[in-house]
């Protein structure tokens, strides 16, 4: 028998079952404890500018502190949030927005239209949809304290979605003086108008971040639904406690030292499920899509036959088993690029992913330009998702007769190397693995990975005009039928040319103590309507 770190994790996790009596003495008084929610986030909150840094953990924390003009609800529809109402001219070129009355920033100042204008200007320099709006923008001006106007050269039907979407960067509203910071430089003040204030003095990056209830926040009257509706805070204080070690987080949850853990690893979930004091459920129903990208600029993947050979040999179950183990509720095959169970999901053109055929793959490879050169497969070992996928891919490539140069490295190195367009032997790369949040893959709005506009495309730089034509068709569509038609064609074109290889759809869990109620499933942890009993 071997003793590994993973065995140790399980051992410590199971230990918690013995300690599930709930008798652990809290360090603080019961009343204060009930008003303080202790949360273990997915990763460290290393910076706190949601426009400058677009990591999900920053977006999740920012949603507590900064509010948005619109918010997407659990039906994926944009709803008014800071906005009281909007008008769009008949030709679709002028949008006029009016803010709700009584909105205040955490420093006591009123939220004014000029703050929104400066915030939207900064956001639109960094966000893909914002950049599209800038591309057709005539002007963005404050009309009066509560009204601002966005006039365009060309209609942009997805305006409300752009302002409501939960994909990073979200269009958070900041005071004008902060929003005037260069979009490529970090802000130093964290003043928002959201339901919680950021306690900067208590922030220890890598260890702790604290949010305190904002007494002057005026929630909407509608029930909360994801980023929309009334964001009512039922606790006074939310403490984010960073725990890099999953076994420690599991033990802390079981002993009652923390209340809610955003992303328990699948190894520990069975043990948490057995604890009578803990609830375990799916975190985000929109899940994630695993992927690997091939370099369309360099041999051998500059030949579509080679890319299709790899896709023909790919079995998504192999990848998903490597990621989530034997829990069948956590994954499903996805013969396409869009998130399952969402309105635009399609399998059009997905036959290549439905039946693995090694022999057909070998035949296709033999017909291609591949001459046995090594495929530089760059795999981040410090990310369990990329490591597991990389191991499966290396095996797959060998099975169809390709030579693999497996470069085991860390995510920081992958991040730098994948940007290089050089030949694989000169510091470039052949393929790398990653994954995409399902929330980003419900439509092309924030789905950078599906774009195929050559040099401007995401790493791998696919150049497929048909994909781009269908992305444009989706943006121009004014109804669901039109959107679905465009997405069907887009999916087929992207699979035909293998923009990237989807390795399956997978979900993750969240876990919280039964003293906590109001936890919902969603693309990020929503703290409003969450309460805690001592």
């Amino acid at each position, binding site marked *: 028998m071997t*003793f590994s770190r993973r065995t140790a994790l399980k051992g410590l996790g199971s230990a918690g079952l013995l300690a599930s009596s709930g008798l652990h003495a809290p360090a603080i008084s019961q009343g204060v404890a009930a008003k303080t929610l202790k949360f273990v986030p997915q990763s460290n909150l*290393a910076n706190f500018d949601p426009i400058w840094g677009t990591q999900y953990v920053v977006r999740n924390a920012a949603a507590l502190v900064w509010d948005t003009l619109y918010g997407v609800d659990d039906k994926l529809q944009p709803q008014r949030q800071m906005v009281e109402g909007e008008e769009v001219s008949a030709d679709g070129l002028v949008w006029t927005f009016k803010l709700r009355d009584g909105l205040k920033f955490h420093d006591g100042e009123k939220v004014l239209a000029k703050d929104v204008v400066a915030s939207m200007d900064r956001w639109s320099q960094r966000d893909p949809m914002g950049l599209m709006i800038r591309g057709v923008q005539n002007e963005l001006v404050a009309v009066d304290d509560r009204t601002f106007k966005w006039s365009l050269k060309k209609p942009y039907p997805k305006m409300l979605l752009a302002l409501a979407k939960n994909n990073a960067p979200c269009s958070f509203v900041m005071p004008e003086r902060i929003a005037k910071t260069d979009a490529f430089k970090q802000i130093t003040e964290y003043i928002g108008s959201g339901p919680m204030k950021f306690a900067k003095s208590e922030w220890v*990056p*890598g260890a702790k971040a604290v949010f305190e209830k904002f007494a002057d926040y005026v929630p909407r009257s509608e029930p909360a639904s994801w980023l929309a509706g009334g964001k009512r805070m039922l606790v006074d204080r939310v403490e984010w406690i960073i725990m890099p070690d999953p076994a420690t987080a599991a033990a802390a949850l079981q002993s009652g030292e923390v209340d809610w853990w955003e992303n328990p690893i699948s190894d520990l979930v069975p043990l948490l499920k057995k604890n009578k004091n803990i609830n375990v459920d799916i975190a985000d129903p929109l899940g994630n899509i695993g992927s690997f990208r091939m370099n369309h600029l360099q041999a051998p993947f500059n030949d579509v036959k080679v890319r299709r050979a790899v896709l023909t040999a790919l079995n998504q179950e192999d990848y998903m088993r490597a990621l989530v183990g034997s829990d069948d509720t956590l994954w499903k095959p996805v013969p396409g690029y869009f998130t399952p169970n969402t309105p635009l999901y399609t399998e059009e053109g997905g036959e290549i992913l439905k039946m693995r055929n090694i022999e057909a793959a070998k035949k296709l490879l033999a017909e291609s330009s591949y001459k046995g050169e090594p495929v530089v497969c760059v795999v981040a070992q410090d990310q369990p998702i990329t490591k597991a996928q990389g191991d499966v891919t290396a095996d797959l490539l060998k099975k169809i007769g390709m030579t693999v140069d497996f470069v085991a*490295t860390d995510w920081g190195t992958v991040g730098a190397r994948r940007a290089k367009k050089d030949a694989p032997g000169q510091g470039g790369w052949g393929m790398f693995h990653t994954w995409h949040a399902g929330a980003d893959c419900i439509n092309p709005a924030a789905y950078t990975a599906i774009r195929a506009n050559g040099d*401007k495309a995401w790493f791998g730089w696919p150049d497929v005009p048909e994909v781009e034509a269908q992305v444009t068709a989706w943006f121009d569509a004014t109804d669901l039928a039109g959107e679905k038609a465009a997405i069907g064609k887009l999916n087929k074109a992207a699979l035909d040319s293998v923009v990237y290889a989807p390795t399956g759809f997978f979900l993750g869990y969240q876990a919280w103590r039964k003293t906590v109620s109001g936890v919902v499933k969603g693309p990020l942890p929503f703290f409003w309507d969450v309460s805690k009993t001592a």
Partner: protein
Amino acid sequence: MLGYVLRRILSTVPVMAIVAMIVFSLLYLAPGDPASVIAGDQATPEDVARIRANLGLDRPFLVRFFEWSGQIVRGDLGTSIFTNLPVTSLIKQRIEPTLSLTLVTLILSVLVAVPLGVLAAWKVGTWLDRGIMALAVVGFSVPVFVVGYVLAYLFALVLDWLPVQGYTPIAQGFWPWIQNLILPSIALGGIYIALIARITRSAMLDVLAQDYIRTARAKGLGQTPTLFVHALKNAAVPIVTVIGLGMALLIGGAVVTESVFAIPGLGRLTVDAILRRDYPVIQGLVLMFSFVYVLVNLLVDISYTFLDPRIKY
């Protein structure tokens, strides 16, 4: 003596300069790019390039090195790329937990290891000696994280005596402070106890074979004063040397221990900074650790004069 101390302190300057140069060069050559981490997956290459330019990462090596060196000379370790906070502030935030952990571990290790080593030397060749040395082998062999998990299992989850994780500043009281440090210190101290116990045994065996010890025993001096007053003091030089050298073990072990017990110390700050390529933080921390290491060894050298009057500087 004072002259020697001053000379040694001055000699740390070129050492630190060499360390600084090596660290800066290695980080410059290492793969990875903080700008791409900051920009996130949706960023275009132009976005990444602009962030890199704003951070000054696109400037030539020498320009960056001399600018950084100038900052260091002024006592400024720079600003973290990610948190936008001064590196000195980050170190200040994190130094208390690490200092507490290493100090408690050091005290615990010395208090346990030295008597064990003395005992093993006194009872050399017996089952007690073999038992202590076997424990030392276990201490060397079992990884810190395994000891940490087992301790957390027993004392935090099963017995519910101590917390699983976290750190409480000493300003909030001695017991809240120490209860968060007991398990991590034992976990971290294992290898250190093993090292000191083995060296103590070895040094004591040499001393116990000396004529003056035989003379002391012949005079009828008791076992305890013979061992702890006459033998241990003369065996102290190698023991203190190993305690000093072992600081590197403690600093390395603190990285793992702080992760296992979620202690917000310098070890975790170092790992986070390396993973994100937060160059100013890495450089600042390595410089600080090097300085501490040099300082500890200076103190060890000075302590020789108190332990052995024959040594003079």
